[in-house]
């Protein structure tokens, strides 16, 4: 056997009060030296449990390997049965011969130790190096993961580093003992797209240089297309399909794989198309989705935002005085037409969410005007603002947190109607039933509580609640980011269908360029609180003019293995801090119109 890893009929069970629950039912695959195997699947498919089993870490989460064999070829050539190995043997394998990268770089590092301490611990334990040898090796490792100023980083604590740098440190830790196998469990899911591109390129280079095998766990088909040699598709604890990356992407055999691939939007596939299009779906939903009619475009302005600025105080010192200000939204102006979607895109901290919340006055803007239907929202008093809220509703990112766990769904959907006294009694009941029908949630769910629903169903209920008072504008703040890709496609299609039927306008806040390309009419790119470029979708995606837009677009992974883009080391300019001292008055935003309706910020 030449394979480094061979997993044979693995079955993992978790003990619960109501008997054992099967996390992984029957999984077999192999990894050859120097190969990247991507395990892909939606949440609950058992992909993480599989990777944890390989490290025997699954036991710490209450799981047991019930059946099957996990063979790992050690550095000395002997074969180790991981499922039967003693804890002390596993201790010498973990972190030494198998390295692991976790999803969350914020929590994978211990906040009370310096970077040096975290890196040298494993080296001294596994390799028997002295303190000075280990420190020298740690420095070498930081250089190999291309962290700027590595000498200084050694003495720093995790909180002093950015998310991207932290993930580089985590990778350096995993690489410290030159493992033969690197397990990466969603290593870029929590990161911004430019940092994701850097990290993926880094993993690719390290793999090439060290001839290491990589087991890459992800839910993102675009990342799979960029990284994998071979792909294992999982669904509910079982393997659906295994094959080379080209096989899977060009000729998937199983329906589930086809559906998964169909639901993934590919950046660039909308080239030359004038209007947004529904997401592709296979199966029951396909018929609904096939009804692709471009949204009627009446050129009538609904939302007019003028010079919107929102700043948050940074407090400090004993007296909790304001020391500085976060310039979250800085001189932002745009208009949104009736029945259209304006997408605000950008990376975390760029101010896109603050912008949406300022428009709804969930946070109070520092200055600027927000006109909806002839009224300046910013100038309304408390009472009128509450009335005006009927016109503008919001859908939040996390469907688990945006519904009250202690209230029945029908009461939550009815709440806005009751608030504005629009209906009561039988009329209210009928209206709520209609809303449930509208978002395709069975009426039988009306009396249930949020925890009885899946993420996608909850988000549909949240949309029903937003629709309850017939708003004109819906602000969708990362409304589909937390959903699995097939569910995401269904929810997006529902939103587009509602837009068409009801003439809704969406302010669609997202970090996902591929989704935005599919659904938006207008796109605004935000950077450091400002819109750096805004215009029709086609203009932004096909002829980006601002350097940041270009950088952002070049970092997006494409769900097509023939278009690989992360072969070499990438290094994007880090995003600057939006915190400025008190009294700092930035220059107003001045734009150049490079094409009709396409504006670019003058730097």
């Amino acid at each position, binding site marked *: 056997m030449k394979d480094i890893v061979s997993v044979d009929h693995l079955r993992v069970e978790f003990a619960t009060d109501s008997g054992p629950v099967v996390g992984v039912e029957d999984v077999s695959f192999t990894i050859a030296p120097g190969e990247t195997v991507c395990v892909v699947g939606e949440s609950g498919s058992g992909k993480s449990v599989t990777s944890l089993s390989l490290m025997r870490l699954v036991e710490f989460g209450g799981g047991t390997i019930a059946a099957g064999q996990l063979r790992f070829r050690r550095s000395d050539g002997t074969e180790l049965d991981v499922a039967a190995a003693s804890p002390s043997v596993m201790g010498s394998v973990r972190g030494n011969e198998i390295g692991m990268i976790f999803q969350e770089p914020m929590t994978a590092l211990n906040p009370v130790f310096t970077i040096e301490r975290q890196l040298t611990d494993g080296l001294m334990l596994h390799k028997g190096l002295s303190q000075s040898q280990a420190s020298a090796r740690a420095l070498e490792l930081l250089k190999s993961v291309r962290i700027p100023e590595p000498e200084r980083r050694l003495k720093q604590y995790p909180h002093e580093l950015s998310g991207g740098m932290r993930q580089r440190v985590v990778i350096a830790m995993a690489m410290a003992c030159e493992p033969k196998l690197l397990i990466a469990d969603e290593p870029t899911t929590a990161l911004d797209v430019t940092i994701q591109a850097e990290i993926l390129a880094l993993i690719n280079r390290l793999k090439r240089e060290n001839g290491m095998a990589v087991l890459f766990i992800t839910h993102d088909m675009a990342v799979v297309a960029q990284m994998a040699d071979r792909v294992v598709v999982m669904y509910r604890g079982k393997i659906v399909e295994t094959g080379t990356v080209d096989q899977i992407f060009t000729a998937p055999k199983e329906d589930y794989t086809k559906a998964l691939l169909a639901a993934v939007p590919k950046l660039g596939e909308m080239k030359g198309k004038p209007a947004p299009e529904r997401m592709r779906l296979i199966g029951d939903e396909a018929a609904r989705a096939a009804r692709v009619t471009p949204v009627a475009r009446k050129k009538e302005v609904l939302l007019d935002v003028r010079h919107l600025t929102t700043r948050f105080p940074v407090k400090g010192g004993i007296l909790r005085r304001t020391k500085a200000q976060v310039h979250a939204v800085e001189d932002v102006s745009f208009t949104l037409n009736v029945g259209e979607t304006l997408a605000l895109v950008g990376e975390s901290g760029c101010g896109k969410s603050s912008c949406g919340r300022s428009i709804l006055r969930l946070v109070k803007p520092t200055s600027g005007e927000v006109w909806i239907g002839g009224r300046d929202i910013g100038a309304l008093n408390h009472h009128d603002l509450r009335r005006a809220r009927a016109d503008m*509703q*919001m859908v939040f990112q*996390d469907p688990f947190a*945006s519904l009250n766990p202690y209230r029945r769904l029908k009461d939550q959907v009815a*709440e806005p109607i009751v608030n504005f006294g629009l209906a009561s009694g039988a009329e209210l009941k009928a209206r709520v039933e209609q809303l449930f029908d509208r978002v395709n949630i069975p009426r039988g769910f009306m009396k249930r509580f949020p925890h009885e629903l899946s993420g996608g169903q909850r988000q549909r209920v949240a949309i029903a609640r937003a629709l309850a008072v017939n708003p004109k504008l819906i602000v969708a703040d990362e409304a589909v980011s937390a959903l699995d890709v097939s569910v995401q496609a269904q929810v997006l299609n529902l939103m587009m269908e509602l837009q068409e039927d009801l003439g809704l306008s969406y302010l669609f806040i997202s970090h996902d360029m591929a989704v935005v390309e599919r659904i938006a009419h207008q796109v605004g790119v935000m950077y450091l609180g400002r819109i750096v470029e805004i215009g029709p979708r086609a203009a932004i995606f096909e002829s980006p003019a601002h350097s940041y837009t270009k950088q952002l677009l070049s970092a997006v992974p494409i769900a097509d293995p023939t278009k690989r883009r992360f072969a070499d080391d990438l290094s994007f300019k880090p995003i600057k801090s939006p915190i400025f001292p008190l009294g700092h008055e930035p220059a107003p935003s001045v734009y150049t119109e490079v094409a009709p309706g396409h504006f670019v910020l003058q730097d």
Partner: protein
Amino acid sequence: MKRFKTTKGLIGIVLLTLIALIAIVGPMVIPPDAATKMDMLARRSPPTWTHLLGTDQLGRDMLYRVILGARTSLEIAVTAVLMSIVLGLPLGLVSGYFGGWIDNVLMRLVDTLLAFPALLLALTISAVLGPNVQNTIIAIGIAFTPYLARIIRGEALKVAQMPYVEAARASGTTDGMIMLRHVLPNIMPAVIVQATISLAFAILAEAGLSFLGLGTQPPAASWGLMIQASRDQLDVAPWTALVPGAAVALTVLGLNMFGDVLRDILDPKSK
């Protein structure tokens, strides 16, 4: 682990039900003068067949006294805790939900009360108002309010930042309705658990006040009063302290067990 918790909860519930039954039914079946009737020939008698739990220095039957005392002790504790909830809940809720200067003003007020140990505060209030059952309740109720308000404020602060509260605000719900419909149900688990813990402390506080002569007045029986009376005869008649002491201990034990389980049942995260 889970099974252990359920058993623990069952013991707690059984214990509390028994104590409550004794406190309610006891005074109905026992003649009212039983607790004060003195058997001068059997003073400081250890447990015998005539006096199952012995007698005190005046020859009064300890069993009757501890049963009749249950009612007084529990009545005071339950009413005082209810009072502290009625006062502390709105205080903490408003403070945590609105934050800002409202929070600052209310919490400085609460902090002022917190600066005094609860028992000292109850003692002062009780001494000023005069010793009787009603004033004991008021004293303990006020003394416990700041603790409850603090905990509720913390919970409300947390819940007020949840997206579903923002979602409610975005859909035009008034502050009052948000507090009632969204914040209150989500902080109730914490309130209930804190209340069971407070009940245990209130029984001890009543015992403490009675011990110092400010709570229940003789010849009426209460557990605290009984412990107080036993203090100078511990060497010759230890049962006079042990019997009411055990009653307090069992009730507190039952409440703690029950409170632990209640917290687990009500916490959505534990499911």
